[in-house]
């Protein structure tokens, strides 16, 4: 079949479909809904995992994150006594142990977090973060003003700090925070910079649980260690408890993904004899990402399959109506055969009609299907106030369109063949 006769066939197909506009539209609805639901389902599936993927990506695919965790057994022991000292979590020694026993490490970033109260220039709850200048490179962030911690600060145990953007705004609403002084836990620090954190992975860290923090204060780790010590005394109604934690987080960055995949058991093994209790957890973002992707694939497959069933129903609708059309146009088929049409020309004619139905239906479905998820997302936002993210991907659109056309044509073959196999004599006598 050449191009010109293809065009003529398509035009003839459109023409005979336009003879029964309502019927054609109703037939197409099946395909329209099918395509629309395939695209929408996949967009919802994609959107649902998008946030989680983003969060994991913020942790860094090449990182392994060790997080200090208060062992569960200690809480009950503390209940019996009035006061006790809880000594747990990651130590500086662990860092050295890992550095020497696990291959492929590029660099390591320790962090110590502690909830403290700022007393000047005004009262505020904050989280003090003792860390290294490396933080700036390893954890996603933007410098808003001034500078970050330096090696000099670290070595000299400078009493300087960098404020998170939100805290800087609430402490110094009408003036630049740079070169200003703040007092945290009875110690004075000079503000040298303001930072915007782009990752929330290390916030609400271990050891907190007190009042809601208004922001974060970054100080050199060395300063933190010598001025604030490793003990955190928490007083409550006649008792107090002391926690001794050296490091809250240890982020280990590797050279490549293969090293990451091997490292987690090595790290656990290296630290096993130093930590009799389960007082730290190992997070492997790469594993989480892979697990999530596997889940997402399954999710998309299930959602897509459900939607594909509606496409199937649409296809059956097309087949049904085409069978009716063949019966209705039996005499026309007989006439065409008498006038010289071969069987395959009859097949081509009817396939062209189903093709036009499914292609037009598919295209309408794509247009509706691309907008529908956003409408849904907007509707959910308007009604519940929750952000509901949807992501329409190009491949989902192409897939939906491809399946709809394939379904339409596949379900068009049977009616078309039935039309072609009619006995011309019988067909001419029909009706």
């Amino acid at each position, binding site marked *: 079949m050449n191009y*010109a*006769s293809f065009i*003529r066939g398509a035009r003839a197909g459109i*023409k*005979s479909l336009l*003879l029964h506009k309502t019927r054609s539209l109703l037939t197409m609805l099946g395909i329209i809904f099918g395509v629309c639901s395939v695209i929408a389902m996949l967009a919802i599936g994609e959107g649902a995992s998008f946030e989680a993927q983003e969060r994991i990506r913020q942790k860094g695919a090449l990182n392994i994150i060790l997080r200090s965790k208060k062992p569960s057994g200690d809480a009950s022991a503390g209940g019996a006594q009035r006061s006790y000292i809880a000594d747990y979590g990651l130590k500086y020694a662990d860092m050295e142990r890992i550095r020497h026993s696990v291959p492929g490490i590029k660099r390591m970033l320790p962090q110590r977090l502690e909830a403290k109260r700022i007393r000047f220039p005004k009262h505020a709850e904050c989280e003090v973060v003792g860390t290294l200048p490396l933080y700036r490179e390893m954890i996603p962030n933007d410098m808003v003003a001034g500078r970050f911690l330096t090696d000099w600060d670290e070595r000299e145990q400078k009493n300087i700090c960098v404020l998170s953007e939100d805290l800087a705004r609430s402490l110094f609403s009408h003036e630049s925070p740079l070169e200003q002084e703040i007092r945290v836990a009875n110690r004075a620090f000079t503000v040298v910079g303001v930072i915007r954190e782009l990752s929330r992975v290390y916030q609400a860290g271990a050891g907190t649980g007190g009042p809601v923090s208004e922001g974060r204060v970054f100080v050199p780790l060395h300063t933190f260690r010598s001025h604030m010590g490793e003990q955190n005394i928490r007083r409550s109604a006649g008792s107090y408890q002391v926690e001794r934690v050296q490091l809250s987080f240890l982020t280990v960055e590797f050279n490549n993904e293969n090293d990451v995949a091997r490292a987690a058991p090595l790290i656990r093994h290296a630290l096993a004899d130093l930590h009799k209790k389960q007082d730290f957890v190992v997070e492997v973002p790469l594993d989480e990402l892979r697990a999530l992707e596997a889940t997402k694939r399954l999710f998309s497959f299930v959602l897509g399959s459900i939607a594909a069933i509606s496409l199937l129903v649409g296809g059956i609708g097309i087949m049904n109506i085409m069978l009716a059309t063949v019966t209705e146009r039996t*005499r*026309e088929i*007989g*006439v*065409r*055969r*008498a*006038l*010289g*049409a*071969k*069987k395959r*020309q009859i097949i081509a004619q009817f396939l062209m009609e189903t093709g036009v139905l499914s292609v037009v239906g598919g295209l309408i479905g794509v247009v509706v299907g691309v907008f529908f998820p956003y409408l849904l997302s907007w509707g959910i936002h308007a009604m519940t106030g929750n952000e509901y993210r949807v992501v329409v991907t190009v491949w989902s659109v192409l897939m939906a369109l491809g399946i709809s056309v394939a379904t339409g044509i596949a379900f068009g073959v049977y009616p078309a063949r039935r039309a072609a196999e009619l006995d*011309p*004599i019988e067909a*001419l006598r029909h009706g």
Partner: protein
Amino acid sequence: MDDHAIIRLEQLTKTYDLGEVKLTALREVDLVIEPGSFVAIMGASGSGKSTLLNLLGCLDRPTSGRYILGGVDVSDMDDDELSDVRGQRIGFVFQQYNLIDQLSVVENIHVPLGYQGRELADCRAQCVDLAGLVGLSDRLGHRPKQLSGGQQQRVAIARALANDPVMILADEPTGNLDSTTGKEILDLFCNLHAQGKTIVMVTHGEEVAKRANRVVVMSDGRIVQDVRRTPTQLVPA
């Protein structure tokens, strides 16, 4: 073999297998039709004339015997070959007109040409000429439903002429028309005959048969009468 014949049937037999019964609709029919003939085939229903018509129209294959159309043996052709023979050598005119509703007059005339691979754009002039030949120059864009029965039958005749067939096969072409319109259509056939077309027409009507120059009467699957004569129109009343 007589090369002069346009149609030659030799011992043509058609048997329908109805399961337990075998029904022989056509028994060893021999018939020769010369070019330029106007043959009327008559007979009661069940006489085998419909079967003969289907065989002549290459819509069916004989059980035995041979059918030579324009020098070509079509008795053992397959479905695609028969389709080509129908499209190229035979022009059909039906009692029910059988135009295609969604197509205009010109497009209907073009249908047989389309199946021979000719685009409407390339042969529109020819189709328009044919419409003029049957007196419908002013109805080119009309749909069949917008035309009277007589006009529809004219379109059907123009369509039958489109591929310049060796034979026009007409099945009761006036059966659905009133006598005046029927006469007009018959006049049209006579004109075509006068121009040298070969016409084979199945009919019940004696009046119709009188216009033919040969009348073949069928009964019980056999030709029982075969009369050649001068058509009445040429005889002064």
